[in-house]
């Protein structure tokens, strides 16, 4: 029978080892799951939930006919075993039947996120154009179209030509007789397929797809589109608390200017 002192020592030692292991393991896991720049298959739920939900079975990877999707391998510096794609290597070809999404058994890829309701018969149909894998951004300093050299390859590679990427015409003041045809991404339409990034002719692509979480800002409740009924609804979600300085401000506005001077 070990002494009480001995038992307590062993207990503490065990707890210490467990804490040490847990902290090390936890720190690694926390670091390993956060890959902010990862691009997921179409229909992926939010990244935070995706890393929980994905069972790493590779069904989407096997279903992808273009070998676009890959499971992250150790060394890819991405959550190991989860699917992703790199458009500069192989972009998403935007299959109309989206084979990668319905095969997901776990709920990490959600068919509803890549569906739209048909206007004709109110039927819900798969619609790859509603995918939000990322958003393309252009580095205007290395895009040769912005230099004035004629190139519209991203514009033409885009499956939603003239919608997701438009060409903006501008007079080239340098030559005085040419035009700029500058590609501009429409963030609300871009699906993030990356065919533009894949097609870009510069040595390192001047147009790149980045995840929505990186690109999209958040307005907050202070600014509302007064001309847009849907946006006005956001006012109801307003979570700004009654400002305690409001009375002070009103007093100030209502007060005689002489009072202010006296103060």
């Amino acid at each position, binding site marked *: 029978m070990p002494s009480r002192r001995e038992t307590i020592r062993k207990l503490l030692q065990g707890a210490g080892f467990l804490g040490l292991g847990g902290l090390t393991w936890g720190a690694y896991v926390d670091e390993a799951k956060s890959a902010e720049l990862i691009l997921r298959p179409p229909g992926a739920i939010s990244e935070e939930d995706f890393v929980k939900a994905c*069972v790493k079975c590779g069904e989407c990877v096997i279903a992808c006919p273009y070998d676009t999707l890959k499971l992250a391998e*150790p060394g890819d510096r991405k959550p190991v*075993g989860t699917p992703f794609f790199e458009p500069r290597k192989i972009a998403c070809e935007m299959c109309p039947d989206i084979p990668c999404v319905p095969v997901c058994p776990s*709920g990490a890829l959600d068919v509803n996120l890549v569906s739209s309701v048909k206007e004709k018969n109110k039927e819900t149909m798969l619609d790859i154009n509603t995918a939000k894998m990322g958003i393309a951004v252009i580095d205007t300093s290395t895009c040769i179209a912005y230099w004035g050299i004629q190139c519209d390859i991203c514009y033409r590679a885009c499956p939603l030509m003239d919608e997701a990427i438009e060409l903006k015409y501008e007079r080239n003041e340098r030559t005085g007789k040419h035009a700029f045809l500058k590609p501009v991404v429409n963030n609300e339409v871009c699906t993030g397929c990356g065919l533009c990034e894949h097609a870009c002719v510069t040595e390192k692509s001047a147009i790149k797809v980045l995840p929505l979480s990186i690109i999209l800002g958040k307005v907050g409740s202070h600014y509302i589109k007064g001309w847009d009924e849907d946006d006005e609804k956001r006012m109801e979600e307003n979570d700004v608390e009654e400002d305690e300085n409001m009375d002070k401000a009103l007093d100030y506005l209502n007060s005689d200017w002489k009072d202010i001077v006296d103060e």
Partner: protein
Amino acid sequence: MNKALKNNKFLILRRIIQISILLLFVGGNYWGWNILRGDLSTAKVLDTFYLSDPYFVIQTFASGFVVAADVLVGALIILLFYALIGGRAFCSWVCPMNIITDSANRLRKILKMYREDVKVPINRNLRYWILGLSIVLSALFGVAAFEAVSPISMLHRGIIFGMGFGWAAILLVFFFDLFVLQNGWCGYVCPLGAFYSLTNKISIFKIKHTVENCTECNKCLIVCPEKPVLAIIGKKSGQITKGECTNCGRCIDVCEDHALKFSFNKYNK
């Protein structure tokens, strides 16, 4: 030759099954076979239903996500199969890491390091603490914690989909078993094995000992990767009931006295 075959019957059978399963998965990814598609985490069988790793699903649940019904049912099938029938057979009949750790053990024998352990102050219950810790960490960090580091997954997924630097983790396990601790990974550390040990209470597929035939040669104790489960050898007849027994059948292979055999039923004499 015939004797060598007979003395390694279950070993050979296990390797055939382990490698066939991997081959079916590889075919599922590269050649469009649909007998088994996916990997050992979740697999689609015959293009109709899923089988899932219940330990993975529990970690996912702890992380705060309830997976869709397909995977839940798949995990339940596997859980029930091992709990009611196979016991801890996953570890020695399916898990590809078993091939790695058995090789390390084999090399130990060849290098005559077979029973010489560096004194490592850990015991076989460590794995249960790691199992518990993995659930706690999954909940704290919102992701399946063991699956983020599992060398087993890196191995089978590596073979099926692409290895990357996963070989480093596999080598780590191999060296740990070879130089640090005999059967270290499967017998002390692996929480997946711990999970199947815990669920292995009432399974019917078990090893049976007949003490009357035993000559106490101790060959079974030398080869057993989970030595404490063989406590009844030479003492009394009966089934090996400890949950840690992986049903690998090595003890049956090496026994020359017909004192050990597989039994499928508690009541068969």
